[in-house]
């Protein structure tokens, strides 16, 4: 049992912790509260000034206008697709890095996976815009097979977002696979399981929390993105775009719209928490 801190040290601890806690409360929770609060205000349609009259019109409009439902569903589907794709890509990649590659190669491979994170977000998105364009390399690479590039649109958004957030999925999965004791795999083989069986019954369950943890990143990042879709999305509209365009015109409506991804992410976190994945974050 550690001894109870002396009164002096407790005071010091309080003094030490107060600024970050205050910062957390004010800057983080405070701004979230303000945001949610402003969703109940109105806006002057001409000057775009916020009018502080309490009403629920924004939420009413949000729930009754079909286009918002379409956009929310589209955003959700894209976030889910990106998450699934990233999980499917990250598993074999992380497996190769953690289990197949020699110890000597692990660090360089890890760095290789992380390097794209150091490049600017816009640089990467614009690079994809060039690649996916009408005369881009993607189209050129597919041309010999009689195929067309996806062009700008939903598919392009999914591709680019999956690319952008892939490291966030690989890292936890890699860590989980590296932590997975060799003994587990041996035990499985020893008891008669082939490679696939071991993968399904031992490896996947062991990395499941890591995949879920990674999916928290890929899912929430995809849900909130509005730049990639502007760059490669063609005419695709996501929640992020609508919020971004409304922020300038109708802040309360934008705030109400922002509640949608917030609610989705909270639901997702709750679901993931039930699955026990937050322990590995």
């Amino acid at each position, binding site marked *: 049992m550690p001894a109870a801190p002396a009164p002096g040290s407790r005071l010091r601890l309080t003094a030490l912790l107060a600024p970050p806690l205050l910062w957390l*409360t004010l800057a983080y929770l405070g701004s979230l509260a303000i945001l949610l609060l402003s969703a109940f205000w109105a806006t002057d349609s001409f000057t775009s000034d916020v009018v502080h009259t309490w009403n629920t019109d924004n939420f009413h409009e949000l729930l009754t206008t079909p286009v918002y439902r379409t956009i929310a569903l589209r955003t959700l589907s894209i976030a889910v697709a990106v998450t699934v794709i990233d999980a499917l890509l990250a598993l074999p990649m992380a497996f190769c890095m953690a289990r197949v590659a020699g110890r000597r190669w692990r660090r360089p491979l890890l760095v290789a996976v992380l390097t794209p994170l150091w490049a600017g977000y816009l640089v990467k998105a614009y690079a994809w815009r060039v690649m996916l364009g009408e005369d881009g390399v993607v189209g050129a690479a597919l041309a010999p097979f009689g195929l067309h590039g996806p062009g700008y649109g939903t598919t392009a958004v999914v591709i680019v977002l999956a690319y952008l957030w892939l490291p966030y999925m690989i890292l936890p999965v890699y860590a989980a696979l590296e932590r997975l004791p060799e003994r587990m795999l041996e035990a499985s083989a020893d008891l008669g399981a082939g490679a696939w069986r071991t993968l399904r019954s031992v490896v996947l369950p062991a990395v499941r929390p890591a995949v879920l943890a990674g999916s928290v990143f890929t899912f929430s990042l995809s849900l909130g993105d509005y730049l990639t879709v502007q760059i490669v999305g063609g005419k695709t509209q996501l929640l992020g775009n609508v919020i971004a365009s409304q922020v300038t015109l109708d802040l309360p409506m934008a705030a109400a719209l922002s509640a949608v991804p917030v609610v989705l992410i909270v639901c997702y976190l709750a679901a993931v928490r039930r699955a026990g994945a937050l322990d590995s974050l």
Partner: protein
Amino acid sequence: MRKRKTSAWRSAAAVCALLLTAAGCGSGDDDGKGGHAPDQLGKGEGKVNIIAWAGYAEDGSNDPEVDWVHPFEKKTGCQVNTKTAGTSDEMVSLMKTGQYDTVSASGDATLRLIASGDAAPVNTKLVPHYKDIFPALKQQPFNSKDGQMYGIPHGRGANLLMYRTDKVKPAPDSWRAVFDDSARYAGHVTAYDSPIYIADAALYLMRAKPSLGIKNPYALDRKQLDAAVALLKKQHKAVGEYWSDYQKEITAFKGGDSVIGTTWQVIANLTKAEKAPVKAVLPKEGATGWSDTWMVSAKAEHPNCAYKWLDWIVSPKVNAQVAEYFGEAPSNRKACAETSAPDHCATFHADDEKYFQRVHFWTTPIKECLDGRKDATCTDYAQWTRAWTEVKG
């Protein structure tokens, strides 16, 4: 333990209350009068923060030959920081931050800025070159209020139809190409990504569907707006992407992702400079367009430099440079003598008021119909915004 929890909640509640009152304070000044125009100017503050359309504040970084920012800095000692905005909405929201001194606002932003008090009245006596501005641009409904000017007219022009000459044949002369005939270029049509673009559809409908009775593309009643939205939804099927970032439109046309759609002259020029085979035309229906005004922020931290900029940008030489670079009609009649192309003013109809009657300058749609109808309620900009979201689906 329990006690600590309650006190934690109490302090959280206190913080919230504090935030609430702080937020409430911001709404105090609703009188909407953006301060007063200064009677005289002081020394320059050494700095000016500008919100401008692409091509309005060139410092040679796009083309070393095109630079009127550095000479200004040299002459006045005011360091220029430029923020390029893609839409009027962006300009309005940037102005609301209070971090900018002056803005090149179009007609769909000016009135909103005046009404919200974000733009200050301008004392035209402090802008010597104001006297040479075309009279037709002075004391207009979009740049003044009760006889008080709220800015200095900059120039005007029309939104054009740009197309790839190698992909679009025959050469289009009507907006029909991007509306009723848009399916021909399915996936490669582009349009301006702003609710104000609804006016382009309305303008087309003025001719294509006279039965709708549209007189002014910014004065649409519910039925007329619905017709425009239906047309835009049809166009949406053929749209490859919308643009509001001019760089994006340049790359799209250069790469062939877009082959036809609305544009500005400056974008057409830059795209041609990138060796893309494009051409921009004013279709026979006329066009929507803009008449821009340099306004001063009511919260300007550098008003003296802002006034110096206002005078500089409408001085004959600079006004001519901007007008030629952007591809618009200058506002200063003396600028016509300074253009490198001697017939620039004629080409862009600088003093041709008849021509500009065919151009419907961007303005903010409001409930009171701008076309003078008293028996109808028109749709306001908020409705346009929602309609635009719906068009894009």
